[in-house]
């Protein structure tokens, strides 16, 4: 009886460890999870095609690699870093903020600020011109109305 008890305990213990291992395994990442990372990268061999929608075999292999890395517990940043190291930064949809890449982030906002400033100055100078010229144009208003009313009177007479 004692022997059975020991066997029962051993089997129970083994079962617990085995079940624990099963729960510890990560589920296979879904296509959506893979594509969420893949969309942040570009096809290595085709022009301007995001990795998540690219139909080539090279892209399919890369997506499988992403799935493998995700199942190993890597996060998106780690995976992107791995791909950038292996295949160059050109595979990243968003260039890393370093070296000449900074131009991509600095130049467009800088040009927008300059554009806004130029527009602001142009509108302000137009406003100033209108204000200064305003004294001459305003008196013309009633004269125009008088002219219109005379035309209307003449038209009435003809009718």
């Amino acid at each position, binding site marked *: 009886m004692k022997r059975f008890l020991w066997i029962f305990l051993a089997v129970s213990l083994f079962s617990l460890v085995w079940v624990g291992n099963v729960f510890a395994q990560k589920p296979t990442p879904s296509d959506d999870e893979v594509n969420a990372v893949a969309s942040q990268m570009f096809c290595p061999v085709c022009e301007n095609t995001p990795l998540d929608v690219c139909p080539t075999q090279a892209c399919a*292999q*890369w997506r499988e690699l992403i799935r493998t890395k995700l199942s190993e517990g890597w996060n998106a940043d780690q995976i992107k870093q791995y791909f950038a*190291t*292996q295949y*160059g930064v050109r595979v990243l949809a968003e260039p890393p903020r370093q070296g000449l890449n900074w*131009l991509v982030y600095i*130049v467009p906002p800088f040009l927008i600020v300059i554009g806004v400033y130029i527009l602001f100055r142009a509108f302000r100078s137009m406003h*100033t011109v209108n204000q200064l*010229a305003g*004294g001459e144009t305003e008196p013309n208003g009633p004269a125009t109305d008088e002219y219109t009313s005379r035309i209307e009177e003449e038209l009435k007479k003809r009718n």
Partner: protein
Amino acid sequence: MNEGNSTPNAEVEAAPKRGVPIWIQVIIWLLLLGLLAIIAFNMKRSQQGSLKVGDPIQNFTLSFFDGYQFQGKPEINLSDLKGKVVVVNFWASWCKPCEQEAAALESVWKTYESGGQVVFVGVDYVDTEPEARKYLSNFGITFPNGPDVGTKISQYFRITGVPETYFIDQAGNLAYAQIGPFGSESEIQAIIDPLIQK
């Protein structure tokens, strides 16, 4: 016309003009010129085209896949191969035309391996390692092969795709560039033999 008769237009003309300070203008122009210079430099680089026959090939280092070695080392430096004909083959496991020439390349490598005058180097271009290993295993490739980490070697050779094969002479200059797959072993040997006899 006296001052009392000044028109509104004259007042507009007399309004003080506050222009952009000269130092800001200088900075903006300098930035624009710098930007144009960078764009021009990159455009020139991208339009360089392939390497030309006779161009000296700069040194590069290729670390091999596990299980591959050259003279007992797990990597190869081109500068260590002066005096030998070097055949650099760019390939990828996803590349169907590469499969056409894989067996021929291995067969020709076997022909020249013992002579020690010719070295074959396989550069795996934007590939994943498991598939690359499967490819090498399927075609029984024994000459040293490794991944082009960071695509530095392929960028230097300015390859336009795979397969492409570059033949470097004993002096370290480009002797021949094959764009696309080889059709036969004799085609490869016809390029190597004259180089050995130089």
